[in-house]
């Protein structure tokens, strides 16, 4: 299958999932009410459809796309199929950035949490790339990511620990669990504002990711401005991961699973895997968000909790396969 066909197929499936997500909600709407919602967006059903369900579903889609893109970029940059913002601590450093701003009371300043989360993601990703350039063993990178994740987690916990305001703490906690509940069009706009430049930079860095398949040293001799491409990919991955965390908190494993699902369809090319990974990430998160809503629990399941419950076993499976590949 060509990559444009897989992209088209994924985009169509994503569209179907988004439409399906519009039909789900606490209030059941009948045919007449849907008609009313379309005819008059300011009516009750119109508000439910266009101001509650639609932004939530689209938000899940763009956050998922950001995570899928970020995961694919990090996997290409680090030449590691286990790389993804959640596993390697980039979500944790992004959370730390966001938490610092929230606890400092600057949460209401437009864009402050988002920018702090992106900066946190950037620092985390830069540390990973610096580590990967020196240590070749792919397993060592995962261990470094675990350390980074634990450290950023501990620093975030320290903020809770020292925070004088239990309300601020609860606010940050709720955000960190990961959710797109009650997200509006403004949130969608924020992720999209970061996702568009991230996608452009990612596209520009694609030839560099392919060259990096041969290893750092060989890639340097292939005639590409590798350092520049690597920086572009790094910025793109950080923008996407930071925007996702700022908007929806920590949602793990989407960045791991999305590239994994589509890699074979683009013959493993780390450049061509970017677009289908973003689309698959969006699809996964829209479907996962629907699952959290139809799961009958008293408190609605948090999206981040749900993806971790499903994603962690998948991570173990992919790690098992990758470890066997590294041994040969």
């Amino acid at each position, binding site marked *: 299958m060509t990559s444009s066909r897989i992209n088209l197929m994924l985009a169509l499936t994503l569209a179907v999932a988004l439409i399906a997500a519009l039909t789900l909600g606490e209030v059941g709407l009948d045919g007449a009410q849907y008609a009313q919602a379309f005819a008059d967006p300011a009516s009750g059903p119109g508000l439910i459809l266009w101001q509650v369900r639609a932004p939530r579903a689209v938000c899940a889609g763009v956050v998922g796309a950001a995570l899928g893109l970020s995961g694919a970029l990090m996997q290409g940059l680090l*030449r*590691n199929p286990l790389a993804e913002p959640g596993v390697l601590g980039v979500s944790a450093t992004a959370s730390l950035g966001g938490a610092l701003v929230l606890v400092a009371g600057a949460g209401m300043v437009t864009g402050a949490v988002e920018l702090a989360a992106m900066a946190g993601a950037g620092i985390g990703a830069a540390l990973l790339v610096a580590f990967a350039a020196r240590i070749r063993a792919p397993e060592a990178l995962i261990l470094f990511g675990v350390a980074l994740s634990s450290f950023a987690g501990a620093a975030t916990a320290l903020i809770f620990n020292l925070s004088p305001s239990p309300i601020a703490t609860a606010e940050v906690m709720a955000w960190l669990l990961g959710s797109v509940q009650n997200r509006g069009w403004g949130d969608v706009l924020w992720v999209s504002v970061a996702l568009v430049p991230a996608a452009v930079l990612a596209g520009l860095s694609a*030839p560099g990711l*392919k*060259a*990096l*398949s*041969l*290893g750092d*040293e*060989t890639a*340097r*001799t*292939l*005639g*590409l*401005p*590798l350092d520049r491409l690597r920086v572009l990919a790094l910025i793109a991955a950080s923008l996407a991961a930071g925007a996702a965390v700022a908007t929806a908190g920590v949602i793990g494993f989407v960045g791991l699973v999305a590239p994994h699902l589509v*890699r074979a369809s683009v*013959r*493993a*090319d*780390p450049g061509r895997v970017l677009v289908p990974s973003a689309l698959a990430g969006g699809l996964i998160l829209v479907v996962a968000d629907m699952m959290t809503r139809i799961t009958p629990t008293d408190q609605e399941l948090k999206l981040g909790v749900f993806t971790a419950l499903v994603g962690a076993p998948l991570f173990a499976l992919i790690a098992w396969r990758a470890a066997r*590949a590294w041994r040969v």
Partner: protein
Amino acid sequence: MASTPRLKIEGLSVSRGRRTVVHDVNLSVMPGDLVALVGPNGAGKTSLIQAVCGLMKPDSGLVQLDGADLSTLGPRDRARALAYLPQDGTVAWNLPALEVVALGAAFLEPDGARARAMAALEEVEAGALADRGVAELSGGERARVLLARVLASEAGLILADEPVAGLDPEGQLLVLERLKARAAAGQTVVASLHDLSLAARFADRVIVMDRGEVRTDGPPAQALGPTILRDVFGLTGHWLDGEDGPVLTLKRL
């Protein structure tokens, strides 16, 4: 000599950490030469090759490609001038062999790169592997694909670090025959080799390195003389007349 050397190295010293691994190396290699770089483990062969590729920053000295200082060449010009085949042949993803080979000519348009890649795969008798994923290939097949990658670059200088390590005898001969053919066609090949017999058989010139220094440099029979074999390698050798030229047989002291 009238023509410009393809590769000229003057007073090159390179360190890894605090240790000097290449010390004051001078040499020049002409177009059409196949030079074998030999020496025990840790002699500095890989470091020398990497310094010529621009992958290690020299402490001092000069590297020139076709008369141009290496440090003045941009990445694209450098890729056209030299191709590097590293010892470690891992490819991170299961890319099709043809795509891996085409990376050797990544400075061309994709179609041009693929055309060269296909020709290079056929040159190493691996045309049938073009669509196979590299992770599914045997070690020998993958070595051919990676060799094809440097051949596809058509660079003036090919630097190959242990290109026959881990290959079966047929694979070793194939790799060296192809490199020899490219040298005969006017490219320059510098290959580090552990097998002195293969070096003696295929190289026009052998450079013996030991502890970061060039111990001797000359035609195989001269460079791999009794003193060097004894002092550098701890071996004794006999030169025999073989069907394809002189053959070196070796024994431990």
